[in-house]
């Protein structure tokens, strides 16, 4: 089992022309865990990952694997496996030939080609030209490329995009297995809900800057609790809440009262003799915390 490496971003900045795509980004990714790299589209995720992999030059800062830059790794594909968002295939080449080219370049045994194609479930399509592949099959081929050198580090950019439900379930298990084996797994997504079931840690960026870093549970805060309450006599209920000094707004399923205490509302209604049809606490979910962090999520 290949050992994972610690990924470190040190003060990475990147400007395209005058525009800062990434600004002073620093974080580390530990082996043995799945780390979600999250942010809205255009937040700088892909640019950061391409800097990490030496495909894009940082304007300043360094990104390393156990202290070594990608281009200085003695055996890059055996150390780091990467699947980036872009479909990087010649449409006229078969999956077998595509992987074969890079197995030769990296000095890997040709037997690895069929092993990884089997691993991602593409063995039956190995000799089909990639031009005819569906988006989901291309994603799997990208993943097969990442696995070619049996690396200890996996860097995957939006691997769930374009997968069918069965594929999504498969990749979630796959990510867990990889981390359980001691590998470092960094996986980007613009949707927290896509990866919430698989990740241990989250790194959240917005507009090129780090906005949150920590275990997934750190997102599970309840900063603005609300309780949904409704009654056949909605006007009476509203008057009672106003009298008790509890602010509320009118939602689709009732009144959204700004309190995290349903018992208090139940008691007020009981005292006022108002029949309740709805009473339950609305918990701010992970997604809400995520959206609040990345700035309302208008670009989502």
């Amino acid at each position, binding site marked *: 089992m290949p050992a994972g490496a610690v990924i470190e971003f040190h003060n990475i900045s990147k400007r395209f022309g005058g525009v800062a795509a990434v600004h002073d980004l620093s974080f580390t990714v530990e082996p043995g865990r799945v780390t979600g790299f999250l942010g809205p589209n255009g937040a700088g995720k892909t640019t950061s990952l391409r800097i990490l*992999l030496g495909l894009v030059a940082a304007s300043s800062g360094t990104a390393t694997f156990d202290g070594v830059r990608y281009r200085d790794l003695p055996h890059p594909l055996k150390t780091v496996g990467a699947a980036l968002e872009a479909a*990087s295939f010649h449409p*006229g*080449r078969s999956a077998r030939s595509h992987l*074969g*080219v890079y197995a*030769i370049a990296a*000095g890997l045994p040709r037997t690895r080609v069929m092993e990884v194609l089997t691993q991602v479930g593409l063995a039956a399509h190995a000799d089909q030209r990639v031009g005819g592949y569906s988006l989901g099959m291309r994603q799997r081929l990208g993943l097969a490329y990442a696995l070619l050198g049996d690396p200890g580090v996996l860097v995957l950019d939006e691997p769930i995009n374009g997968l069918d439900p069965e594929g999504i379930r498969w990749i979630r298990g796959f990510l867990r297995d990889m981390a359980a084996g001691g590998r470092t797994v960094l996986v980007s997504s613009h949707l927290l809900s896509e990866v919430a079931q698989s990740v241990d840690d989250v790194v959240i960026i917005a507009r090129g800057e780090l906005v949150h870093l920590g275990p997934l549970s750190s997102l599970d805060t309840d900063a603005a609790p609300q309780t949904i309450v409704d009654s056949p006599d909605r006007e009476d209920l509203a008057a009672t809440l106003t009298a008790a000094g509890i602010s509320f707004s009118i939602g689709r399923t009732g009144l959204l009262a700004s309190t995290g205490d349903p018992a208090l509302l139940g008691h007020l209604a009981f005292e006022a003799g108002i029949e309740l049809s709805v009473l339950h606490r609305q918990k701010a979910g992970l997604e809400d915390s995520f959206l609040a962090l990345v700035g309302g999520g208008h670009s989502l």
Partner: protein
Amino acid sequence: MTMFLRCVSAEFSKIFTTRLWWILAIVLFCYIGLLAGSLAALFAGIQTGVISPDAVNTGGGSTDLGDLPSLIYSFASSVGYVFPVLLGTLATTGEFRHQTLTPTFLATPRRGLVLGAKTVTLILVGAGFGVVALAASVGLGGGVLSAFGVDALLFDSETWLLVTRTLLAMGLWAAIGVGLGVLVPNQVASIVTVLAFTQFVEPLLRLAASFLEVTAKIGNFLPGAASDALVGSSFLNLANPSASLPLDWWQGGLVLLGYALVATVIGYAVSWKKDVT
């Protein structure tokens, strides 16, 4: 060194796992075969009197065609050179177009090494195209000459020198294609450049340059003229018999190599080492 050899091997694999190489090779063979075969028949017919010289409009020029076999055989490079250029250009621009630079540079982060390996590979495959083109020009052209009773000079050392230099020229043309591909990474723009320059601009420039002795000297350094000098014979020299002496064969070879190196080095700086996004 083993890393470089692995890169060369991977570049060979890239070329031979898509269909382009054999499509180009077949078109090259048919094109050169048709041209060399039919012109061999025409010229041999004139030379042997089968076709009356009076029946041919020689434009007032001489009907002395010089060394007829060399002329026919040189069609392999003087006409066929555009094929290795196209192969080299497509091998490079295809990496940009299909975004295969990403997996390529992930497998081999040393980009200069990759470009060097691609150049070496294309020189060898270009020479392979030379074999195909010569099979057409010497095989079919020489066959037609023999059929007309003209000595095809197949066992003449001059012929084999021409064959060897043709292989070298075709290899260097493929390297020029690689250089052009990094210089103009947009595939459509690159192909248009190749076709416009080789089929139209350069032939006109060579013709225009031939009218004055001083421009003719400069015209000798055009890539097509340098290639013909390297190979040692070309039908284009028939059009301007008054031109100054062409370059020596080795000078022509160095000029071609120079074009390839300059284009590749500049292309490396302007596109190959840039961000892959």
